[in-house]
């Protein structure tokens, strides 16, 4: 997991996203090189979740271009192994497990619902993936509502990595978890990054987590990236925004409630 990356894997250029008269993204540029693990930090409500949904096309953009592995998103095929969604794994902020399906079917969803794997084989794969996130076969047969929040998050991570994606998006993987579970999940993500060699974008408010899992950090504020650099430079960024975030000060260029 070094930053000596070759080609850009995920490129966002000039993203603009408005909801009604409110501009959430205002010319956001961001690049993740192949194999990068990029942490995106920013205060609550700045548009971190919106930005990755726009990048994946889950929300329509008002302006801007998105490239994956050098190819504009619109030119990627919509189905088949080269389709963007076949190559991506996503952890949503609220886990977004399908509550009508048991955990193992959630995890194996892409394999046998839309892929070609048989049920029995998909079950095996799901159990393997669940074991990787520290959930056993008992949990595999439960429904999401029968799991705690932390277990749901782990299951959702297992679902995100089930099809060995090339691009990974984690939206706040450790928020709302106790420090020990959070550390376990951090290690898990670190592991995904090294083992799958996936290009990973992790949205987080948790600096300890960012330091552990990322090699680069970008800060989103006011609809743009205000600082980007190697994780080691987080403490000497020279950016007033990052400075304030790192030290958790209420006063500074960043206000907790962005103006609407």
């Amino acid at each position, binding site marked *: 997991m070094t930053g000596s990356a070759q080609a850009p894997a995920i490129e966002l250029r000039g993203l603009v996203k408005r909801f009604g008269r409110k501009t959430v993204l205002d010319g956001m540029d961001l690049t993740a090189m192949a194999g990068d693990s990029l942490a995106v930090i920013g205060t609550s409500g700045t548009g971190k979740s919106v930005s990755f949904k726009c990048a994946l096309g889950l929300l329509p953009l008002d302006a801007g271009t998105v490239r994956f592995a050098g190819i504009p998103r619109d030119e990627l095929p919509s189905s088949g192994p080269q389709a963007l969604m076949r190559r991506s794994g996503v952890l*949503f902020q609220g886990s977004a*497990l399908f509550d009508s399906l048991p955990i193992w079917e959630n995890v194996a969803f892409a394999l046998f*619902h839309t892929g070609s794997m048989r049920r029995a084989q998909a079950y095996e794969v799901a159990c393997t993936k669940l074991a990787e996130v520290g959930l056993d076969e008992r949990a595999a047969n439960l429904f999401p509502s029968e799991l705690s929040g932390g277990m749901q998050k782990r299951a959702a991570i297992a679902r995100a990595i089930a099809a060995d994606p090339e691009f990974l998006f984690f939206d706040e993987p450790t928020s709302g978890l106790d420090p020990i579970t959070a550390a376990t999940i951090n290690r898990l993500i670190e592991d995904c990054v090294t083992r799958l060699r996936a290009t990973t974008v992790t949205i987080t408010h948790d600096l300890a987590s960012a330091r552990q899992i990322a090699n680069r950090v970008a800060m989103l504020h006011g609809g743009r990236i205000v600082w980007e650099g190697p994780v080691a430079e987080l403490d000497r960024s020279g950016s007033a925004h990052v400075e304030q975030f790192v030290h958790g000060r209420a006063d500074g260029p960043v206000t907790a409630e962005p103006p609407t």
Partner: protein
Amino acid sequence: MRAWPNPLAPIGRVVLEFLAATGRVALFTAESVLAAVRPPYFLRLAVRQFLEIGYYSLPIVGLTAIFTGMVLALQSYTGFSRFAAESAIPSVLVVSLTRELGPVLTALMVAGRVSASIAAETGTMRVTEQLDALVTLSANPLQYLVAPRLLAGVLALPPLVLIADVIGTMGGFLISVGKLGFEPGIFLNRCLESLQTLDVVSGLVKAAVFGFLIVLMGSYHGFHSEGGARGVGRATTNAVMSASALILVANYLITEAFFSR
């Protein structure tokens, strides 16, 4: 410059909003139907939805039908006895049940159950990002969620309506024989004699169309819900209201197409 707002402006806005909504529904319908005819097909889900829509609606549909048949017999007796035309009761009963009351009342009851539950389920999936998650797992939500339900709705309503027709006639039969003094054999004979194929067929066509509308409205409002639990609640209400309204309008149009000449 403009001291007074234009009194026509609100009307124009309402008309525009109505047209826009119609367009959105039409687009959603077209996309859903396209998704339904294209592979992959989720047949297992369609079977589950068939049970959900058809089988589990049987109690409420049966209850509605039997009381409708009973009331219909009582009321037509009141009316027809004034002209000494009581013998027309079986024929009036069976024709109005198969042509109109069976399909419409069944569909309205099922709309209350099924449109609401589809809208609530889909709406919850929308606000908890499960619909987005489907997309990221390479599943088209229209194919995975809407198509199986559309198929199930179109297939489940006709048999439900047939059952409602039979149960409704039985209700009428019970009252006519038990209370109004009809001969059982004569009553049933009259029913069968006056029934024509077109009565039944038009009722079944209506049923299939209503099944489509029920699922479509539930799905449409669920898909477009936003804003948490409140939004889901609103979607549920709108789904039932619009499904019921469309059922009544479609019923008139189909009746007109079959029987006006």
